[in-house]
Structures are given as structure tokens and as C-alpha cells.
């Protein structure tokens, strides 16, 4: 059992989990949810429930006639070795507390992360995903704050190590905060330890003070 499994308080919303099940989310959001589900059996079970909805839609949906040689063509495909398959995600040990899907994007553990300083001790690393949303790792030194910001779209923040507090609540390892345009917040890392998060956004953040706003185009935050 994952060591965070019983302490997670903040979970994926139904809307995001349904969209993840349907496969319609931008890659950066899918990565964040796959990472949370890897750490949270409760959301894994909820995801299974949403997949069951998908199964029911397949079962009840309109059937389309397949080609007359469809079965024969499928058997031929199987005999020829089958379609190119993506590898099945295998269970593997956590490296630096990072769930498997995230290790894939980093290429290993935290020592493989190419951090860039963004000021006040905060570091970030943008992960390679499709451009309709951005996934970044954030390093916030113990007690430091990410500048006060609002969101044009949706921001998902998953705590990987340490913890942060904002106007909403306290977020520890495995907790996921879902912020939208209604929330302006200043996440502050817990004083006890440095905080490492995975954050995904589908629109640029809106900073409330001038300096980060001027720096924004260069930092891609």
C-alpha cells in the first residue's frame, strides 16, 4: 500500500475524473490525474466507476455493421503479431516518492529534473506535454510563497513532497487542489520541509503584482 493512501484529503473532482475516463483531457491534466490516482486507491475506484459508465455506453450504444471480412482481418492481424501496443504500465518502486507516470516524464527521479530558478528560491521545470496545457514541477523552499495569482482556466496542483497552505486549506503529499477562475491564492510551503508539487494549467496564471507579471512571458508561468 502506498504510504500516502490513508492521509489524502483532497481528491480529483467528478468532472475531471469523468473527462479523464473519457480520454478528453489535455495531456498535462491527464498526467496530473494519473499521478494522483497512482497514489490514491479511492480515486482509482472512482475512476473504475466512471470507466463502468463508458462500458455501459458501449453496451447500450448504436451498433454499426462491421466489414464482412472484419473477423478474418482481425484474426490475420493477431497472427501477424497484433497492433503496435503501448506498453502496459507496470508496478514499480517509487523513486523519491514520485509515482510511475511522473517518473516517465522526468526520466527517473528528482536528480533528473532540470530545474530553473524563478526567483525567491522557487524553482520550476516544465515537462514535455502537448501545448494545450502546461505541466510543471514546482520546488518551493520551506516557508516560501508562490506569488499571489489567479487563474484564467483550471490549475491542478498535486503535492509530491512536503506540504503547502493557501486560502483554501492545508495540502499534503498526494493531495490535489483544483483551482479555477474564481480562486486567487498564495500557496505557501509548510515551514517543516521544502515542497515539491506538480502543477498543470490550461491558461496562463494571472499574477496580482507587477514584477511576476513582467517576468511571465520569459518564465512561461
Amino acid at each position, binding site marked *: 500500500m502506498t504510504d500516502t493512501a490513508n492521509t489524502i484529503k483532497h481528491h480529483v*473532482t*467528478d*468532472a*475531471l475524473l*469523468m*473527462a*479523464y*475516463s*473519457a*480520454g*478528453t483531457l*489535455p*495531456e498535462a491534466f*491527464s498526467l496530473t490525474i*494519473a*499521478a494522483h*490516482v*497512482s497514489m490514491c486507491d479511492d480515486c*482509482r*475506484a472512482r475512476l*473504475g*466507476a466512471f*470507466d*463502468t*459508465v*463508458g*462500458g*455501459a*455506453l*458501449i*453496451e*447500450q*450504444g*448504436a*451498433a*454499426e*455493421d*462491421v*466489414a464482412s471480412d*472484419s*473477423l478474418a*482481418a*482481425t484474426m490475420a*492481424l*493477431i497472427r501477424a503479431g*497484433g*497492433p503496435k*501496443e*503501448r506498453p*502496459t*504500465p*507496470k508496478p*514499480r518502486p517509487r523513486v523519491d516518492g514520485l*509515482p*510511475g*507516470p511522473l517518473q516517465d*516524464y522526468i526520466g527517473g527521479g528528482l536528480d533528473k529534473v532540470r530545474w530553473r530558478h524563478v526567483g525567491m528560491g522557487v524553482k520550476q521545470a516544465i515537462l514535455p*506535454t*502537448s501545448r494545450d496545457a502546461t505541466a510543471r514541477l514546482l520546488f518551493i523552499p520551506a516557508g516560501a510563497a508562490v506569488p499571489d495569482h489567479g487563474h484564467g482556466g*483550471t490549475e491542478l496542483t498535486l503535492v509530491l513532497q512536503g506540504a503547502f497552505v493557501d486560502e483554501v486549506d492545508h495540502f499534503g503529499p498526494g493531495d490535489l487542489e483544483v483551482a479555477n477562475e474564481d480562486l486567487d491564492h498564495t500557496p505557501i510551503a509548510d515551514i517543516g520541509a521544502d515542497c515539491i508539487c506538480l502543477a498543470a494549467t490550461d491558461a496562463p496564471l494571472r499574477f496580482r503584482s507587477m514584477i511576476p507579471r513582467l517576468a511571465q512571458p520569459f518564465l512561461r508561468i
Partner: protein
Amino acid sequence: MDVTSTNERRETENEDWVACIALIRDDRDEQAFARLFAHFAPRVKGFLMRSGSDTTQAEECTQEVMATLWQKAHLFDPTRATAATWIFTIARNRKIDALRRQKRPEPEDLPWGHEPEPDQADVLVLQQESHQLGEAIAALPDKQRVLIEKAYFGDLSHSEIADQTGLPLGTIKSRIRLALDRLRHEMK
């Protein structure tokens, strides 16, 4: 036909799909595969076409989905999913690869238990509860059902999906959660 006998018929049918997948896994049974194919391939094709594929692409993807079912039969866990649910996840992944050309990172897989055969009572209850959910979806008011279909066919973005879906997911969620706990326990 009254509701009870429809239920019974569906459950028998579904148990049969679980058995078919086991026959494919254990014996590479082509007749079992043909039965599954006759039922599911047209449904998968319909799903892909409603998700925006043209006929040619949907036909090709359907064959790939069904071939994947053959290849991955050993990964099917009937205590966590029905055949339809599992086939949905394969079709969804194929759809993302082929239509959206995006990646959808997946959660880590769970470690596998030592028991080769799952408990039949667990399998049966999961299948029954999945069918009850299916019936609840079919009984939803049209407007609500259309919204859910739109979400799964890719016609709604995540911000357009309501957090209150009105779907009765509690029972099936608890059932899958029990199966996960059992799996974790066996691994200890």
C-alpha cells in the same frame, strides 16, 4: 418481457463474456473470440463513429481494439470490470492514439495477486452492479443522458462537465474499492 427476466438474461450473457475472455487467455479459443467479436465489434465501431471517426478509420480501429483484447486477455480482472468496461478502456485508448494523436498517461498498474482465479462470487456481484448502473443510465431523463454521452464521445470539455453528474456511482465504486483492497492485501 418483464424486467426480471431481462436482467437474468443479461447477467447470463455477461458471465459468458467473462468465460469467453478466460477461454481466449487459457486456450487461445477462436470460437469464444468470434462470439465476443460478434457482440462487441459493432458496438465498438458505433462508439468510434460517434466519437468522430469515419467508417474506414472506425473499422480499422475496431479490428485493432479486438486484436488487443486477444493479446491482453491475461490482464482482464473481472472483479474490477465487466467485459464491456474493459473493452471501453481499450477502445478509448485506441481512439486517443488514432484520432487525437495525444498521449494519455495512465496510473501505475497494481501488483498482481498470487491467486490465478478470482473469487466467482466477487465476479458475479461486480457484473450485477455494473448492469444496475447501466440500467440507471438508460433510465435517466434524456437531457441528462445526452450530456453524459457527449462527455464520453468528446463533445464536452472538462469545464463543461458538471461536478454533480447525477449518476449513482457509489455502489460500483465501493465494489471496486473492495477488489483493490483485496489485491493490495494479497500482495503483502
